[in-house]
């Protein structure tokens, strides 16, 4: 048992878990039932994908564009799995569980323990993955119940909480001018396409920008 690692896992789990309340409220405000909102947290268990599903369907987008956007946002978890599999070395039901809790935070804490060795990495992965799962789902339920009690989402500012939540998710990734230029271009393109394309498609269309920006090696 690595105590510093455990402390880090707990603090990450609690902080991230709290955002679950914002998601729970956003789900109900977008017209999802409490059950549907909670199932997204239990089964999808990937914050950005979940917010995309409720954001797109709540503004009239189709299930298909919601699923496609969630798929593109969840792709990186596959890459985390690739990174974690040789460290965890699990099979069967344990691999299913490990895959389900493979997210930004569990992978991030695990990689942060690299200096302490693979045992610490494994502990960091499992404590953080299961800890975030627990708190994320508890706070999703609390947020969904709270939003239902509130009534009109606009009166409580929930309509602005959703874009602010996305902004908070993308912010740590905007490390340099290259990333910021991509972000501003994608935001502008999606807004300009909104009156022209069915809901959901303006968001997916910005993948073309990501491909264009990533095609060539940066100098």
């Amino acid at each position, binding site marked *: 048992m690595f105590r510093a690692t455990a402390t880090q896992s707990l603090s990450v789990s609690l902080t991230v878990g709290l955002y679950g309340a914002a998601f729970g409220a956003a789900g109900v405000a977008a017209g999802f039932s409490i059950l549907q909102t909670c199932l997204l947290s239990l089964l*999808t268990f990937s914050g950005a994908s979940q917010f995309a599903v409720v954001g797109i369907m709540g503004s009239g987008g189709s299930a298909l564009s919601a699923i496609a956007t969630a798929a593109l946002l969840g792709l990186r978890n*596959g890459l985390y799995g690739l990174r974690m599999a040789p460290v965890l070395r699990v099979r069967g039901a344990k691999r299913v569980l490990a895959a389900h809790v493979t997210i930004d935070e569990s992978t991030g804490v695990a990689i942060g323990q690299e200096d302490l060795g693979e045992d610490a990495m494994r502990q960091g992965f499992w404590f953080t993955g299961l800890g975030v799962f627990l708190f994320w789902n508890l706070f999703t339920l609390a947020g969904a119940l709270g939003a239902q009690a509130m009534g009109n989402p606009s009166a409580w500012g929930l309509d602005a909480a959703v874009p602010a939540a996305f902004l908070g998710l993308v912010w740590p990734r905007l490390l340099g001018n290259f990333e910021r230029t991509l972000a501003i271009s994608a935001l502008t393109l999606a807004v300009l396409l909104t009156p022209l394309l069915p809901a959901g498609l303006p968001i997916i269309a910005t993948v073309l920008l990501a491909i264009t920006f990533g095609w060539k090696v940066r100098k």
Partner: protein
Amino acid sequence: MNSIWVGVLGASAIAFFWKYLGHSIPEKYLQNARMLRINALIPIALLSALVGVQTFGQKSELVVDQRLAGVAVALIALILKAPYFIVVISAAATSAFIYSLR
């Protein structure tokens, strides 16, 4: 089954599919540098697009309303390095305040 259920279960299925796939294929099959670069940029594009559409979109129209003020305050909070929860709450409080003035 209505479309919300399709969205919930479809997104869940594909989210798990990616995660499990990552744990199941040998690392050496995925070393294309261009793919890794693009993969890192896709979340930036999609999340930024969502910020824009959720701030200005109203069905298929563009509107400027209390949400823009909320997001502007969230941006200031992020620049001041506020924790995520404060960012979201300050946006909600600002938007609710302006909505109440209407």
